[in-house]
């Protein structure tokens, strides 16, 4: 992946596919590290699946037996001498408190650090593709933070879908303005 934000889009889609009503995406940066956390309340995974998700030959796709999403993110983090962790509680074992949490830590100053890239597009693409799921996005840097909570937008929009063209473009501008203010 050319940008870390593409991994974010890819991994967050797993959460939606796992039936998550809410997927939380946190990017926290300081001068030397970037921490990415993606947390959902989807169906989760049992230990057996969890142990094998970082293996490219584990996948939920049906068109071929290879899945690269998680292995690519893990590799991107480890290449910067950072770390990767995934924990999960399956719905069958934890009916009240299930979901998956992915944490990847990157050393920003490492030569193999993939730039974050266009996070705004990843968030709008995510919402456009799954207008019935909710997302909480927060990006905190030393200069301030950018936040979006689709539950707040949904409360205003009522029965107008989040994937309406005007709404997607509004979200894009809304995030753009917040990033401008951080500069």
């Amino acid at each position, binding site marked *: *992946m050319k940008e870390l934000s*593409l991994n974010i*889009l*890819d991994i967050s*889609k797993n959460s939606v596919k796992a039936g998550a009503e809410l997927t939380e995406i946190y990017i926290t940066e300081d001068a030397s590290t970037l921490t990415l956390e993606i947390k959902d309340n989807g169906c989760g995974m049992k230990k057996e699946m969890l142990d094998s998700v970082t293996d490219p030959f584990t996948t939920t*796709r049906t*068109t*071929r037996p290879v*899945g*690269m*999403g998680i292995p*690519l993110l893990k590799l991107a983090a480890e290449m910067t001498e950072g770390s990767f962790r995934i924990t999960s509680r399956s719905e069958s074992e934890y009916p009240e408190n299930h979901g998956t949490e992915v944490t990847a830590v990157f050393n920003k100053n490492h030569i193999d650090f993939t730039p974050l890239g*266009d996070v705004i*597009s*990843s968030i*709008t*693409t995510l919402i*456009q*593709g799954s207008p019935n799921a909710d997302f909480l996005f927060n990006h905190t840097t030393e200069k301030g933070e950018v936040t979006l909570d689709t539950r*707040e*937008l949904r409360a*205003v*929009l*009522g*029965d*107008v879908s989040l*994937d*309406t*063209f*005007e*709404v*997607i*473009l*509004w979200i894009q*501008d*809304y995030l753009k*303005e917040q990033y401008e203010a951080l500069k």
Partner: protein
Amino acid sequence: MKSLAELQAIKEKMQNKVALRDGSGEMRVVVGMATCGIAAGARPVLSTFVEEIAKENLANKVTISQTGCIGICQFEPVVEIMEAGKEKVTYVQMTPEKAKRVVEEHIKGGKVVAEFTLANKA
């Protein structure tokens, strides 16, 4: 700054349009957005379709959705266009520039951009 009040205005505008849209959803644009598609550049392709279709005021006749891997990863980014009563058109190895031409010539103009289709590659 953007405010939620603006979103409220969009809502009111849209609610008036919803009735109009019923039954006239003529075209469907489907963008492959699995790991293979994303890595090959599907995200800017999707954004271009959203922006161009909104800009050209085609939102009433076009819906855009995303799908997973359809099994032709080497041809990603893949975009399918479906229209009632017509055969599905599969565009392959798409870019934002190609997406603009598809909006202009196919979605607006009704003429398939043959040079970008899978049939042309096979």
